[in-house]
């Protein structure tokens, strides 16, 4: 295509999508997943696909390249068409609704959008256990990436301690669940009725987060005196210590780990915690108190001279981030329903760092994007097996060379802007 035709298509695309508010897109997505529920099976059979493609066809494409045209059609008809058409048709009423909801109450509007988003995710993942698992892990990855971004991006430290925080949360939450509500080998008889379990699950998660935050003191306090490189080592040592600690703690299974966590981490639970995590972290980093993290990062001496309590700021930053890593760890343990010390080592660290730096430092959008894209990519490339671990690192190296701070760095996440109605001026075609 010449650059001129390229531009024409781009402008056409822009015109098409410009009037669609977020509400419209969500309705379009809902239309797509409903269509898939209704027509997915027969349609994929028609196209000669063995079953409904679980991950937008990526896995099928790699395993059986001959089916690529079929997959393409499937995605186009089942996802692309409803998304485009429903979103566009609903644009006007969606704008009207967005405007009125916003006018009525912003929290209300946000809740409606979240409910719709949840509906889409639920419906999509309902069709396959694999989808559900992938979705849950992706949401947890979002929590981990965002919380790591608080330390590495907003605070500008290079912290390798996150797997350690995650481990603390995972083990504490698991111990809480198993010892109190389940009869198992490690802890013996349950102490409380199993029915109470799901309701007290949040308590276990929060407990895990708090222990992780406590552990973060070991990294936060040295950060008062040492900077950058030395803190990186201290945090690395911390991670190895936590891993080694659990390897030697027979009471939680030692190197063999703990399994059979109760199946309480269902999609609504994981979704709600992820939303909470994003909401709270975003609130924090947008406030002046949160921006103090940036000030300490960019010039600590100046921050000091401008009444910023640098120690408290660092302390809050580390403990807050560790808390969420701990909660994510607890959720992780209950989704996978098995953890061992090996889960929380260098490989986990590399994955987390990749997601943060790929997505973008100091950016909520970046962390969400990085977590989702690398999680999905990692799943999608599974058929390539070991080649996956050449492609993904290469991709990351390319991003580091061309955009060293990540793809969407330093971008503010403004909820108000997200959910507001778009202008629906009729542009002459």
């Amino acid at each position: 295509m010449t650059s001129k035709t390229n531009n024409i298509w781009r402008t056409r695309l822009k015109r098409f999508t410009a009037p669609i508010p977020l509400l419209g897109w969500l309705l379009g997505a809902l239309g797509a997943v409903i269509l898939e529920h209704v027509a997915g099976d027969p349609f994929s059979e028609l196209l000669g696909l063995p079953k409904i493609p679980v991950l937008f066809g990526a896995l099928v494409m790699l395993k059986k390249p001959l089916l690529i045209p079929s997959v393409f059609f499937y995605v186009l008809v089942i996802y692309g068409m409803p998304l485009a058409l429903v979103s566009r048709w609903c644009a006007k009423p969606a704008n009207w609704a967005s405007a009125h909801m916003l006018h009525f109450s912003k929290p209300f509007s946000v809740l409606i959008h979240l409910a719709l988003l949840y509906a889409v995710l639920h419906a999509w993942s309902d069709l396959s256990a694999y989808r559900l698992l992938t979705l849950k892990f992706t949401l947890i990855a979002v929590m981990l990436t965002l919380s790591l971004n608080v330390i590495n991006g907003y605070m500008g430290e290079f912290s390798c301690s996150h797997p350690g925080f995650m481990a603390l949360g995972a083990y504490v939450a698991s111990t809480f669940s198993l010892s109190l509500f389940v009869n198992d080998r490690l802890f013996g008889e349950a102490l409380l009725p199993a029915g109470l379990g799901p309701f007290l699950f949040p308590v276990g998660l929060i407990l895990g987060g708090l222990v992780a935050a406590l552990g973060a003191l070991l990294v936060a306090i040295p950060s008062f005196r040492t900077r950058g490189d030395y803190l990186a080592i201290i945090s690395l040592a911390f991670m190895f210590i936590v891993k080694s600690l659990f390897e030697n703690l027979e009471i939680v299974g030692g190197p063999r780990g703990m399994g059979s966590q109760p199946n309480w981490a269902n999609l609504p639970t994981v979704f709600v915690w992820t939303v909470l995590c994003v909401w709270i972290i975003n609130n924090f980093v947008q406030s002046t108190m949160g921006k103090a993290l940036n000030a300490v990062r960019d010039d600590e001496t100046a921050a000091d001279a401008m009444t910023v309590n640098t120690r408290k700021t660092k302390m809050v930053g580390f403990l807050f981030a560790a808390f969420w890593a701990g909660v994510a760890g607890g959720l992780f343990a209950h989704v996978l329903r098995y953890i061992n010390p090996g889960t929380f080592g260098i490989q986990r660290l590399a994955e987390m760092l990749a997601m943060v730096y790929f997505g973008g430092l100091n950016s909520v959008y970046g962390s969400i994007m990085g977590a989702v894209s690398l999680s999905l990519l990692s799943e999608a490339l599974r058929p390539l097996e070991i080649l996956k671990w050449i492609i993904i690192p290469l991709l990351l190296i390319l991003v580091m060379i061309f955009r060293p701070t990540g793809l969407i760095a330093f971008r503010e996440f403004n909820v108000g802007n997200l959910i507001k109605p778009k202008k629906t001026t009729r542009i002459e075609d």
Partner: protein
Amino acid sequence: MTFFLQNLVNALQWGSFYALIALGYAMVYSILMLFNFAHGDIFMVGAYIGFGMATLLVALAEMGAVSPPGWLILVLTIIISMFLTSFLGMLVERVGYRPLREAPRASAAITGLMIGIILETGNLMLLGAQRVRFPRLIQSTTYDLGGVFVTNKKIMIVLVSISLMVALHQFVKRSKWGMAMRAMAFDYAVVPLMGVSINKVARLTFAIGSALAAAAGILFGVAYPVLDPYMGIVFGWKAFVAAILGGRGSIMGAALAGFLLGFIEIFTAMIFPSTLRDLIAYSIILLILVFRPHGFFGEDYSARLRL
């Protein structure tokens, strides 16, 4: 007492590996102010190259119906492998780090991690998940020195390591390029102004560091003949910690810290159950870093992984 001396010998050997690898880290860290997280995997590749070389040489000898002494093959292996691995190091520098010279150092660190993963995966792809066995080149003989049993292998490993370190020390202290490296460690920006190419110094730094890592890999293969693609992770990270412990700006400090780490690990295993070894070693390191944050011989450059 003999028990103590016995472990001392073991610690010297164990520490040699850490020291040689730590040197590579420390050089890159001091001179180029970056962490080369791929270094542990370069150690692994060096060991494998050594394995390949040794196997090749042995096969050639058999074909040629000659039987050279084992130590000759070993020496040739070490020299050739060091040479070849240095090229790998230079390649890594050129492809991964040079484009990021001006970028935030954290980005270079991530790149290093990724290169490491690629090296590990490459190994898995080429050689499969099987472990390989380093060919036995030297017959093991044990000497009894008053109750302390020392194998010739251990002596050789320690001697070779120390010779390499001494050679490096002399190079850095006396040669022209060594001086350039010291200058760059001191003030990075001024060196090109004096007509010395940063690229050349960087390449040389990586070449030397990688060669040393290869030597460590081969010596490791002599002592513990079973190699696996992830051996770089275990050693690499610990040597990395040792390098920082030695302090920024001090290459010999890194070597000393490597030996110290070896001592800590061996003597911890002596007293405590071996599963606690990592836990205690890292705790000790953590304590040292908390109370002496600039390492043993480092100065307060307040170096920062800046955004």
